[in-house]
């Protein structure tokens, strides 16, 4: 087996969200820490796509930001081609490695500079990397990128506010692709797009992967999209990965009780009248996570061990699952 392109080892990121010191003194309120990501391991092979799925607030975007270096990790390490990015003290070396990755942000509004024309926004990474010598080459590359995402080269003259939500998201995709990155972190890249433009973008991403061997870390709440694009999927719950499996395997044989819930909640397009089963119970808070397995308050298989001991990811037939019930072989098989 070749060395994975990206390797995250025990990464964690905590946020201090305590009330200001004065309130803590007067009201006696306590320090509050959100453990947004709390000990996550994964590897992504070159040319492959790993997707992260899980409830809103479970830490997906935080992982994305950690991987591209927008957040400092509280703990753990992130390796790119075997180089630990978190330990690099050579600025130049780090900039060079980081230049080979790009990120598409969940919020396309916040990530586009409102005072720049679209052509300058898209050209920025190209200029930064000094990929072309002449202005004409840059312009033609920008035009090509805009066409690839279903906009027109002439749209380059406009400002971001002149575009609809989905059009802005496509501008941020064009910018991310501009510098021919090898590794792309995509946080909900198609969530603002109608399905026909989404199909166009997903096809483009797959074509680039086939042609240039791009590697993706992909985040989406749409399980059908995830099913379509991923080789492997990590299911997250409250800052941790609870199941890491090959795509086929996860969809045909989900092992973790939370994965099973998630798949049961897929919307019903055939309108058979089947009611979606929302995951029962309260969404727990990352400020006061439940003891033991953090899923235990919502899990029909929870027992005393689950309430006290946190399960670790363990190998089960090539899939990694963090669940005592699976380990003890006492869950009902999936139907």
């Amino acid at each position, binding site marked *: 087996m070749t060395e994975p392109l990206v390797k995250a080892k025990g990464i964690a990121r905590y946020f201090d969200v305590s009330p200001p010191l004065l309130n803590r003194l007067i009201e006696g309120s306590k320090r509050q820490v959100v453990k947004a990501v709390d000990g996550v391991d994964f590897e992504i092979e070159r040319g492959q796509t790993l997707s992260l799925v899980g409830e809103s607030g479970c830490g997906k975007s935080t992982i994305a930001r950690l991987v591209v270096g927008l957040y400092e990790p509280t703990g753990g390490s992130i390796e790119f081609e075997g180089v630990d990015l978190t330990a690099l003290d050579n600025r130049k070396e780090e900039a060079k490695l980081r230049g080979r990755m790009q990120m598409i942000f969940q919020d396309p*509004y916040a990530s586009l500079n409102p005072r720049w024309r679209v052509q300058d926004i898209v050209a920025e990474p190209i200029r930064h990397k000094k990929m072309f010598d002449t202005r004409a080459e840059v312009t033609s590359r920008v035009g090509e990128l805009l066409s690839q995402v279903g906009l027109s080269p002439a749209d380059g003259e406009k400002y971001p506010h002149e575009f609809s939500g989905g059009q802005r998201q496509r501008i941020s995709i064009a910018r991310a692709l501009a510098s021919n990155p090898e590794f792309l972190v995509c946080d909900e890249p198609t969530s*603002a797009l109608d399905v026909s433009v989404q199909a166009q973008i997903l096809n483009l991403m797959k074509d680039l992967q086939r042609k240039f061997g791009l590697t993706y870390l992909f985040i989406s709440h749409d399980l059908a999209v995830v099913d379509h694009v991923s080789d492997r999927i990590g299911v997250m719950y409250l800052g941790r990965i609870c199941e890491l499996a090959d795509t086929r395997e996860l969809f045909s044989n989900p092992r973790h009780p939370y994965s099973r819930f998630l798949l049961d909640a897929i919307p019903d397009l055939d309108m058979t009248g089947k009611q979606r089963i*929302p995951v029962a119970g309260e969404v727990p808070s990352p400020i006061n996570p439940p003891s033991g397995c953090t899923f235990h308050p919502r899990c029909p298989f929870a027992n005393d061990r689950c309430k006290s001991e946190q399960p670790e990811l363990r190998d089960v037939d090539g899939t990694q699952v963090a669940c005592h019930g699976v380990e003890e072989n006492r869950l009902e098989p999936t139907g």
Partner: protein
Amino acid sequence: MSTSKQQPLLEVRNLRVEFPTRRGSLIAVDGVSMEIAPGEVLGVVGESGAGKSMTGNAVIGLLPSPGRVESGEILLEGERIDNLPYEQMRKIRGKRIGAIFQDPLTSLNPLYTVGEQLVETIQTHLDLSEKGAKDRAVDLLEEVGIPSARERIDHYPHQFSGGMRQRVVIALALCAEPRLIIADEPTTALDVSIQAQIITLIKKLCREHGTAVMLVTHDMGVIAETADRVAVMYAGRIAEIGPVAEVVKNANHPYTHGLMGSIPKVGHEVERLTQIDGSMPRLTEIPTGCAFNPRCTEKGPRCMVERPILEPVENSFVACWKFDPEGTGA
């Protein structure tokens, strides 16, 4: 619901929204008419850039400049609201119309905590004490699925995840119990289980308070479960409007047909997704005749010259010459 003869809660008649630009006028919404009955959810779907958000923004009276309502009428419970002075419209917004914007950040002020913003909105529209308003705010946050709402209410928007911010915006829109909700992509950043929770909440409001909802989304799963009727938009126009089951399962219009075919489905292994070839025309360069004609595989000579009008097909209305007795011929 759509067959009852009661007065529609919202009526949009022949709405046209334009953006004057350096290179001529851009027509973002072109002759759109729709009605929503009390308790009804009208889904609005269509190509990115088709004018869904601008239709919603026109109803709320918040078109981004230089956009303006060029012609048409908008009526809320029988009263015209498209020509009201700013102050009067501002009172209607929030109280009688709740808006959930596509971009959660436009509705949230980064300098105030989530709680401060909710309490202020609640106190503007409802007669409640500070304490009462805060309790209501906490209840609302819990209803939209924010864990530890009592603690998190004192946090700032940037301390929330994308989907949590979106839910705060939903709570803000619902807090004054409006008659009409304009929800623009309310569930895009939400996972399926929270989505189900929000949909249940919206449906409950419709059932119990007769709230009418215009639900703009590209998520067909959400449409299938929530909407009573659906309008499909393309290049500023309505291509098809009808009962949800008919539009989703037996799309009539060739564009709707392509749209439904592009949806990825769990467990269907395909190398490439079906896409509709080409892209939507720029709104300053809409072709004559049918706006979909450059991409349509069923077009005829008539489609190139004459603009199709909405005509009844089964229980829907469809703008396509294919369904006209004279067909797509010259």
